[in-house]
């Protein structure tokens, strides 16, 4: 057993020095050698971003900064926590709604203070044993191979009850991600025969929602909330359903209840702000967006959007000092995120003009130009839209249209975005310019598309691939082009064997797409094919041996 502990890497996150020392002492006693400690959540996340740990022991209460639940959520969201890593949440009391309120973001183990070393060792051994049994699935998930993970879950249903439940939960969640709703539903129904698990009912509600059966989804979510008033995630889903049903007032009331129970979730505050704006409740909107900014200060879930919206509300109030300070803070806050930066720059220009009509705004415009030139592919469509809106309002049409051109090149075949661009420009009476802009960006990409299809048909695969990859470099966010190039490269490698350069490019592109939308089915399917491609030789060996 000693060498098991000796082989692993540990991270302890606790704001209390004596507790860090105590945990470290216990782990050392078990034979652990590689132990790091952090005194706050921010440092913990930093450590997690740099190293792969096998075991994380994190206190829930970490003083003023992030709490343990935030560390867990952000680490998972940012991909710092591999499935194979065991996350232990240490709490002082056994029943905290803030901790237990999340159905999806649960640590591997909760432990309640005071903790003695025998118990910790016992718990560690049992968790590590469990993780070891799931090694193959963890590897598939680490490779992003959801299809592979699903089939592995199906073959490993023989173990003990705890393992079976874990696998059922995992498998059904993956099925939902891949839109295999029937499969997910049948797993949840099986589980509900065992016991009335809230997570299974929650899953069924989500399936109803994705299938478009809002009526049933809302019924299910309501029943869940009645029974488990602390499962706050259900509130978010029910609010989504209600908003789609046009019941914005009910949705707003629901989220108000949820933020009262737990104010820290940035996305919930933002959503509440949005609903309040729609319902014309400016004071509430201001409170919600302010809370989003406040709790987002050291959260990876913060967006420039809450700064923009709050700025708008301040501007309407005529609260100029607050407005200017907020935008300056926002610029600092998002210094390393060009997309958010552009949104804030345009809003800042607008605010300046608002304060004084003759105030020059050239510096803001230049900065936007500069950011667009460097980061073209990394700019989110939503941010570009928002910034273009501000620029049109400032009568800076050239700059606005430049942003929209970037947007259209990244989404040249997506009707939703084309429509939204047209609507926006209509608002500023630029219909003719809109058509020209759309034709221009579409034409360019269509040319590339046709040329590549022709090349592929004539067997010029390698030339087609190089052309496509050039296009991807030029329009790094264009999903259609990316998928075409990935598909061509995978076809090529099927025939000629794995080519490391292509393989790397495919993995990189697909991961970027999945980061943007983790339910991108096509990207998922290609990623699975890619993994199959690289594991095939090994499988053949094992058959032969």
């Amino acid at each position: 057993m000693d060498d098991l502990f000796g082989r692993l890497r540990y991270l302890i996150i606790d704001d209390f020095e004596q507790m860090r020392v105590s945990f470290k002492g216990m782990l050392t006693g078990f034979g652990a050698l590689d132990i790091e400690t952090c005194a706050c959540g921010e440092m913990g996340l930093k450590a997690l971003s740099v190293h792969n740990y096998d075991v994380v022991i994190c206190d829930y209460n970490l003083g003023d900064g992030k709490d343990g639940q935030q560390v867990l959520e952000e680490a998972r969201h940012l991909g710092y926590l591999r499935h194979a890593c065991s996350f232990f949440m240490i709490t002082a009391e056994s029943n905290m709604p803030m901790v237990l309120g999340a159905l999806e973001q649960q640590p591997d183990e909760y432990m309640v203070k005071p903790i003695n070393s025998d118990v910790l060792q016992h718990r560690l051994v049992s968790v590590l044993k469990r993780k070891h049994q799931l090694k193959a699935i963890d590897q598939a998930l680490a490779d992003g191979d959801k299809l592979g993970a699903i089939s592995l879950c199906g073959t490993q249903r023989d173990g003990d009850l705890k393992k079976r439940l874990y696998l059922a939960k995992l498998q059904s969640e993956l099925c939902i991600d891949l839109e295999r709703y029937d499969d997910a539903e049948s797993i949840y129904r099986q589980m509900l025969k065992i016991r009335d698990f809230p997570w299974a009912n929650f899953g069924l509600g989500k399936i109803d929602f994705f299938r478009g059966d809002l009526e049933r989804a809302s019924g299910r979510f309501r029943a869940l909330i009645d029974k488990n008033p602390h499962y706050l995630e259900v509130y978010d889903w029910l609010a989504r359903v209600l908003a789609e049903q046009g019941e914005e007032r009910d949705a707003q009331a629901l989220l108000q209840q949820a933020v009262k129970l737990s104010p820290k979730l940035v996305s919930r505050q933002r959503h509440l702000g949005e609903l309040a704006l729609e319902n014309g409740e400016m004071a509430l909107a201001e409170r919600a967006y302010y809370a989003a900014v406040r709790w987002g200060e050291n959260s990876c879930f913060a967006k420039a959007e809450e700064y923009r919206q709050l700025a708008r509300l301040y501007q309407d109030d005529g609260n100029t000092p607050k407005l200017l300070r907020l935008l300056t803070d926002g610029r600092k806050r998002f210094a390393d995120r060009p997309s958010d930066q552009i949104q804030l720059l345009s809003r800042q220009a607008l605010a300046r003009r608002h304060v004084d009509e003759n105030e020059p705004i050239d510096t803001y415009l230049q900065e936007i130009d500069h950011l667009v030139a460097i980061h073209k592919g990394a700019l989110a469509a939503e941010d570009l839209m928002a910034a273009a809106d501000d620029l049109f309002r400032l009568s800076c049409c050239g700059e606005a249209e430049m942003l929209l051109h970037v947007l259209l090149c990244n989404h040249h075949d997506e009707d939703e975005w084309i429509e939204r661009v047209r609507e926006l420009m209509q608002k500023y009476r630029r219909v003719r310019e809109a058509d020209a802009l759309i034709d221009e960006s579409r034409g360019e990409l269509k040319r590339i598309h046709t040329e590549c299809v022709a090349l592929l048909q004539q067997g010029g695969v390698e030339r087609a691939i190089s052309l496509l990859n050039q296009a991807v470099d030029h329009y790094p966010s264009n999903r259609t082009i990316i998928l075409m190039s990935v598909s061509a490269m995978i076809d090529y490698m099927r025939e000629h064997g794995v080519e490391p350069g292509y393989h790397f490019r495919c993995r990189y592109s697909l991961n970027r797409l999945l980061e943007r939308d983790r339910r991108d089915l096509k990207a998922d399917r290609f990623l699975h094919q890619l993994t199959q491609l690289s594991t095939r030789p090994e499988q053949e060996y094992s058959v032969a041996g």
Partner: protein
Amino acid sequence: MQDSQQQKEVLGLTSAFAMVSHDIKNSLGILLKYIGTIAENCDLEASGVSRECADMEYEVRRINNNLVKMLTLFKVEEGNYLLNVDAHAISEFLEEEMLEHGDLTKQKGIGYEIECSEDLYWYFDRNLMTGVMSNAISNALRYTKDWLRVTAEASEEGLVISVEDNGGGFPQSMLDNQGEFFHPESGFLNNNTGLGLYFTQVVLDLHKHDGKQGSVSLSNGGILGGGCCRILLP
């Protein structure tokens, strides 16, 4: 209006209480660690220091258990308790509950056995049941001569967990009046065992489902001849 004002005050009190208990628990954890270190460093044969350490640890654990009980009862009363039911391996759970009292059993020279099938699983809120077991075990440790026997098996009505010891058993008056402990107005708070039983019953009530009810009962005799605490978890 007054109602919501009142509710606000109660909620504020609970969270204040939760925060204080967090702090107390940190201190208790450190105290426990020091006690462990002292016990380790001093000669076991020497002058009863080890015995005193054991007593000290027993008291610290009692403070902790009572804190947990109070906080839990508080929340249940308010309807604010969030039940976290999951599947747990019973043998693993019981093993861990005994390890929880490991230092104490070592220092007092008490041995124990666990009788439970490896593949027995049950659904329950682990933290609540830890409170329940802690209670039963620490009580048995206090009155036993030198041996504890913990058993678990599934039955029609639910999971039956028994904690037996080879001490003198419960006083007859306690056995006769055990039904009384479930009525807070009977003044049971004067008696630690009473509070423990009350807490246990509250926890078991939270676990009732499919029309099945839990219960706790005390008796004397059994295989070891001492006290026996029998818990039925639905």
